[in-house]
């Protein structure tokens, strides 16, 4: 069983990823795809007159200000556009994909942070109407029943809070939680970089192997967004996933390459 996180950043090629995933699926490989949607959410939100606002947490992470209107645009773009685009591509490759968000059947459930501390326009603030949180429970039974029935699950934000609110969650961390819940052999995180680099963006400084127990130490090499990915990897390895691979989503047959060890392999 593989869990494959598909990054939405510039350059990642949905077509080749879908082709590769469909080929593996047709060969009988059980796999689950997970995707995010921040890049495209920004674009649509701006067109709809509700441009994205980013806040920085007190410890330096930057994240989307997710008020109710932003949440609805984020949900619409992730679950209604990106998810269905991937499902379409997979269907056209004869892989019977089923697209679901974490809200559906409570596939991704977790606590909504009712208050978040941020630095916003230079002030330290508490934001209360934010719909953000973390995936704490995964409905593995529903995912497995779909796999057993011959479907290819494609999972999208949002997740759902215990009270039933949709919540913005980090796609990488949700993928990690899913890999642990399904006891996947590998979690593959595809993005528009070849993996973790000692001196970003110099691709010759690619780190190819990281022993699982040292993963926290490598946080120092991680740029902003990559920090979250490394945190997700640490959580997955701690949760029993044998291998986490940060790999390049821009190349042909990117999943096969990652399974073959191309990228930053954490095991």
């Amino acid at each position: 069983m593989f869990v494959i996180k598909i990054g939405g950043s510039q350059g990642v090629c949905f077509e080749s990823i879908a082709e590769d995933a469909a080929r593996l699926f047709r060969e009988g490989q059980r796999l689950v795809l997970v995707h995010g949607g921040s890049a495209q959410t920004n674009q649509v939100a701006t067109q709809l007159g509700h441009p994205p606002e980013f806040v920085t947490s007190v410890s330096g992470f930057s994240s989307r200000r997710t008020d109710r209107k932003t949440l609805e645009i984020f949900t619409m773009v992730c679950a209604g556009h990106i998810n269905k685009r991937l499902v379409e591509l997979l269907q056209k490759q004869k892989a019977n994909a089923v697209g679901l968000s974490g809200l559906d059947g409570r596939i991704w459930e977790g606590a909504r942070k009712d208050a978040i501390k941020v630095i916003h326009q230079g002030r330290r603030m508490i934001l209360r109407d934010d719909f953000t949180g973390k995936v704490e429970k995964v409905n593995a039974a529903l995912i497995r029943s779909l796999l057993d029935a011959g479907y290819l699950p494609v999972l999208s934000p949002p997740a759902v809070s215990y009270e039933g609110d949709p919540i913005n969650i980090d796609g990488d961390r949700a993928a990690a939680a899913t890999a642990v819940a399904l006891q996947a052999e590998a979690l593959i995180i595809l993005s528009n970089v070849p993996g973790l680099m000692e001196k970003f963006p110099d691709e010759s400084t690619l780190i190819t192997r990281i022993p699982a127990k040292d993963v926290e130490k490598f946080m120092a090499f991680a740029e902003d967004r990559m920090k979250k990915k490394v945190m997700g990897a640490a959580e997955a390895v701690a949760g029993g996933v044998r291998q986490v691979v940060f790999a390049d989503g821009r190349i042909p047959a990117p999943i096969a390459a990652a399974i073959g060890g191309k990228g930053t392999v954490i095991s």
Partner: protein
Amino acid sequence: MAMDPECPECAAAVPLSPETLVGEIVTCPDCGMELEVTQVNPAVLQAAPEEEEDWGE
């Protein structure tokens, strides 16, 4: 501000600038407690919530 609000922890007066916003975090000058401004005019303070780091997309 008409009257400085009281710190809910140590009851000390907590001076606020006129531009203070609802939701802003201020620190009690006496006990150093992190406080959340839940209302302005008149200002009301409560202990700011603890919370760990979890962020969305």
